[in-house]
């Protein structure tokens, strides 16, 4: 992969600093805005994703739900999830959410990944997997607060939504955006998407959704996939959308403080061992030492005079 042609700002398991001469677009990043209040759950996005990425998942079975396939897989990078919720007025709401990678600004997958360059983050905010470097360990799944990446049984590599990094790189919108018939999916700069969302929230409030809002969770630094929700105060209603996502403490610690600490511990052990050796090691004697010392002494002072 010709990495210098991509505007990468972070790579997994790499401490070498990234090329930093590009001014690029400054702080401007892209975002996909998913408006659950306009979404009709038609699954055009699921199909477009499979078509663009040349993926074909299994033809499964129906387990009693509209959701098909049943879960994200290495071949289904996005999935419509359906939740039936009775609201406080006794009316039914059918909350339909397009699930997939949130493209976090502080990606847990990248932090957890031990394979150098298997996960990268571009300057535009997209978090991408470079599977040629993936070792299939599954740490990315543990690191992801949203439980998104999936390991393929075929090649044991991890896969997830790429936010169509290949299309975006040549100025096209992601395939799902293009396919969405109602405009529930829109794409543009994160700032523009936030402005668009603000208009939507105003409209929703005028229709009685007092707690409508934008889902752009700060716990992961904000995301480049955001949701407009009727009930921004209860994200979990949307088939378990995480209320307060953040990278788990275990991952943070293991990939965070424990690294330098572990290094420090190793360095300390090495130095301590050295000092221990030079201070204590040579001062201990064993039988051979005694015998040799006696030999040395005899050589120096001649045979022992008997009284």
């Amino acid at each position, binding site marked *: 992969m010709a990495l210098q042609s991509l505007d990468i700002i972070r790579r997994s398991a790499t401490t070498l600093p990234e090329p930093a001469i590009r001014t690029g677009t400054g702080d401007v990043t892209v975002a996909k805005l998913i408006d659950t209040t306009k979404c009709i759950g038609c699954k055009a996005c699921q199909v477009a994703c499979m078509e663009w990425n040349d993926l074909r998942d299994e*033809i499964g079975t*129906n387990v009693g739900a509209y959701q*098909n396939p049943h879960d994200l897989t290495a071949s289904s990078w996005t999935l419509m999830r359906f939740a039936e919720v009775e609201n406080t007025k006794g009316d039914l709401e059918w909350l339909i959410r397009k699930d997939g990678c949130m493209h976090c600004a502080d990606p847990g997958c990248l932090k957890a990944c031990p394979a150098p360059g298997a996960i990268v983050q571009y300057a535009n905010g997209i978090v991408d997997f470079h599977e040629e470097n993936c070792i299939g360990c599954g740490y990315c799944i543990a690191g992801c607060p949203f439980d998104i990446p999936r390991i393929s049984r075929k090649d044991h590599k991890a896969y997830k939504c790429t936010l169509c990094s290949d299309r975006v790189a040549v100025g096209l919108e992601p395939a799902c955006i293009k396919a969405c018939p109602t405009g529930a999916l829109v794409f543009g700069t994160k700032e523009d998407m936030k402005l668009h969302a603000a208009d939507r929230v105003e409209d929703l409030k005028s229709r009685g959704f007092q707690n409508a809002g934008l889902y752009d969770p700060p716990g992961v630094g904000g995301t480049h996939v955001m949701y407009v929700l009727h009930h921004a105060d209860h994200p979990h209603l949307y088939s378990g959308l995480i209320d307060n996502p953040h990278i788990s403490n275990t991952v943070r610690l293991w990939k965070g403080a424990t690294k330098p600490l572990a290094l420090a511990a190793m360095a300390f052990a090495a130095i301590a061992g050295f000092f221990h050796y030079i201070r204590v090691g040579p001062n201990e004697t064993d039988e051979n030492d005694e015998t040799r010392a006696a030999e040395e002494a005899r050589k120096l002072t001649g045979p022992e005079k008997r009284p």
Partner: protein
Amino acid sequence: MTNHWVDIKNADVVLVMGGNAAEAHPCGFKWVTEAKAHNKARLIVVDPRFTRTASVADIYAPIRTGTDIVFMGGVVNYLLTNDKIQHEYVHNYTDLSFLVREDFSFQNGIYSGYDADKRSYQRSTWDYELGADGYVKTDPSLANPRCVYQLMKQHYARYTPEMVARVCGTPKDKFLQICEIMASTATPTRAMTIMYALGWTQHSVGSQMIRQGAMVQLLLGNIGVAGGGMNALRGHSNIQGLTDLGLMSDLLPGYLALPPEKMQDFKEYIGSKSFKPLRPNQLSYWQNYDKFFVSLMKTWWGDAATAQNNWAYDYLPKVDKLYDMLHFFELMNQGKITGFICQGFNPLAAAPNKAKLDESLAKLKFLVVMDPLATETSEFWRNFGEHNDVDPSKIQTEVFRLPTNCFAEENGSLTNSSRWLQWHWKGAEPPGDARSDLQIMGGLFTRMRDMYRKDGGAFPDPILNLTWPYAQPDSPAPEELAREYCGKALKDLADPKDPAKVTRKAGEQLAGFAELRNDGSTASGCWIFCGAWGPTGNLMARRDNSDPTGIGQTLNWAYSWPANRRVMYNRASCDPSGKPFNPNRKLIAWNGTAWSGADIPDYKADEDPSLGMGPFIMNAEGVARFFARTFMAEGPFPEHYEPMETPLSNNPLSPGNPQSLNNPAARVFDGDRKTFGKPDKFPHAATTYRLTEHFHYWTKHVRLNAIIQPEQFVEIGEALGQELGIASGDRVKVSSNRGYIDAVAVVTKRLRALQVDGKTLHHVGIPIHWGFKGLAKPGFIANTLTPFVGDANSQTPEFKSFLVKVEKL
């Protein structure tokens, strides 16, 4: 649609009822999304199920399947009682003030003139009272008890909110809330659009359900205005084209009628169709019927159609009886059909009562299937276990499969719900030996014609003299056919006011149906399409979507029949003086000498409004009808009748009258009546419908569709699930009196138990898309369950209301 897709963004209120717009038309639905996002529109959904459309609606109300006339009749009652009607509109543009004959009557569910043995009406009493001048008598004060307004108030007095709650199961508060929102569009500056589909057509009273919706729209002044209309969502990309071209057993192209057997006289036929004006100075445009008819006959029989032989009138077969789908298969079941060319159709899956279809097809001597897919119908003879339990050794039918290409593998036009003819271009080569339908039909015709030439026949003239002017007789090109439908001048046409001036040269395409003549000098295969391929070329191929007025009137995108008019009846968007009712959404206006604006006027272009010509120029009255006269089989006002398979034993709107329990005018074949089920054995109300992931029985052959919706399921509410101990994912058996299907159960909150006539009623939802061919998991044909009976006017089968029982497997 009377309006069009883009116009829906102009609506202030959108009612989706008798349809599931988001599910079935996700792309068109974006115009509803636009109306909500940019026009603050409110979306109302009324449906037995909480659908995908309901998920984005502002208000949802449940309704028992088959009771829409009660609901919308209840709205009529509400509007009349609370006087929430657009007065200037209804007084001037409808027949509210017209007087009805004294001998017209309605008693406990039955209209005057009923013949119970024939199950039909003698309709002559269903008409206006005419004066000595031949015009309808009116009472503009609306006080006369025989005026349509008073008769309507009387008729709908029974349709109270309490009756709606009782019969439909709709909570009264929800019903009244919806009435209020609808009533808000009675003012000239607000408009409601109604989007409906098969939930209103696939009933034994479907046509009247639709009429009931239209009556509500007329009361509110929503017909002919931007953001209004009665908008049918057609179920296939070119089904509008199919009906436009008259592919029903009793029609000719352009909604002309095939003459009935008793009308052997050409002049009598033309006279019966050329409605004379019933009010002074009305256009009554069907008076031009002969121009359309003669131009059609010249298209088909060219020089063999002359004034002397009444334009080959005798070549046309005459209707002895209807040959609609249901009757056709009934005849097949009686062994009266030798062969069947089944083109782009999968009746084993799509027609009701699969068992009857299996039996019927097996009685054919031969079956020809023209289709790009291997359909269930083409393998009706093969055993597929429970899914098609037949014995091939007992079936003698010879089946020919002629693979056709699909729409993307040829040029042609598709006519959408908006009446837009949009030309499309070939995207790929057809696979293998597949041929276009035109090639196959061309090949069949030329061979048959040769055989008739050689061997003669009882009356081969219509076949031998049929014009067949195509460059390759075996393979007519879509462009040749398109030009033929639109039509051309056969001779130089002169200006009627100035015979020396030639307005159209012989051989030139015509610019519109106003150029059609009844003297054999013009030809047009489908008068309503005339102009789509005009003298300047193929207007259907235009792709200019500029929208200068901002109200979605993209006149240069494709071609909208008739005459590129986008909103029908748009004269009604202006008051009687010619000024637009809503200055913010002007369609047309009178400028002192002519009508013009953002649309092609649906009116005589230079007619001064003070002369009183009405906006509904196809009607002899010039105004819209609340009173349908003799034009509907069941009666001039919609009346509620229960579905043929009903959970009730009594019709609450006409209690105690067994004749009016179900549609008294609907045709029921004797054999089929015996197959109807009763609520004691089949207690639940079932309805069939479509999912967004699939199109009928096609897309189960497509991998991507099969992935996103792989396997047959049925939907039941949580209450019924609890009662029967069924959880989501369990397998269940759903049976009607005609057969059973097994499927996975989806137990959902979206189906609530309803209180109907004092009892709890459960709906069972049955998506249709499964069968024994394709990539999706094999399943049962849903129409195993449905009843073989249709609407009294259109014969569309009652797929949407029948009775079933559910058992856990």
